[in-house]
């Protein structure tokens, strides 16, 4: 796989744009899934995943061919999703209405320590509940949980993707797991 990718990247660098389509085909599902679980919305996930591939194409000359292409691509996609999450949630004025959410305030977007009420749990599909609870995680925990348990990447690779020391990745995974444990208690 790596040999094929390297060959295609070299073709792209020589100006063969069509060679890039094969790279997109190989990674589109992984990148889309990463964005979908980060953002919890198909439409936004598609936008971000497309943007990640466009940015990777535009910057392909700066990619170090000796590194793993997927790590680099996942880094671009993760950063785009984190930016999107941050833009959606202003840091201040917790009681201000969040634009485009029809009356939701920042308070309603803060993950709570309490588990879901049981009657609410019963009326939702399990997948939707889990996705909703992942979406309620702060972005720094959400990214490590998605990379580890959805994309099934190693702690070392996650540390490379997030450009963060291994110790920090571990701490975030522990805290993310604890937060999700509290949230999914009644499920």
């Amino acid at each position, binding site marked *: 796989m790596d040999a094929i990718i390297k060959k295609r990247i070299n073709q792209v660098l020589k*100006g063969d*744009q*069509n060679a*890039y*389509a094969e790279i*997109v*085909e190989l990674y*589109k*599902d992984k*990148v*889309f*899934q990463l964005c*979908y*679980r980060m953002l919890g919305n198909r439409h936004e996930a*598609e936008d971000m*995943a*497309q943007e990640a*591939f*466009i940015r990777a*194409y*535009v910057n392909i000359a700066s990619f170090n061919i000796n590194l793993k292409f997927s790590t680099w691509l996942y880094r671009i996609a993760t950063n785009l999703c984190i930016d999107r999450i941050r833009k959606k949630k202003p840091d201040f004025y917790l009681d201000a209405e969040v634009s485009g959410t029809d009356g939701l305030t920042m308070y309603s977007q803060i993950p709570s320590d309490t588990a879901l009420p049981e009657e609410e749990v019963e009326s939702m599909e*399990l*997948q939707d509940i*889990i*996705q909703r609870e*992942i979406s309620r995680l702060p972005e720094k925990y959400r990214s490590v*949980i998605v990379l580890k*348990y*959805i994309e*099934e990447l190693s*702690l070392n690779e996650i540390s490379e993707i997030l450009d963060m020391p291994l110790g920090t990745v*571990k701490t975030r*995974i*522990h805290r993310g*797991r*604890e937060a*999700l*444990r509290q949230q*999914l*208690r009644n*499920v």
Partner: protein
Amino acid sequence: MKCHEYEAYMHEYLDEEISTEHEKNLKQHLQQCVSCQKHFHELSKTITLVKGMATVTAPDDFTSKVMNKLPKEKKKVGIQR
């Protein structure tokens, strides 16, 4: 050792980085402590739930949409001799 210290062992275990000694201590403690047992069970269940989520795939026209949005290739300037 206090219960919250065993919590750290639980995470070492879940990261598959626990030493034999810590694992032995954790197992012994879990046999005695109902609340840590529950905690550990909830953590394991959380992971099972997240890992068990259905795989999602990109829309069918994803690649063609990306290819259509790529910046056009730069034309070579000048005449090649």
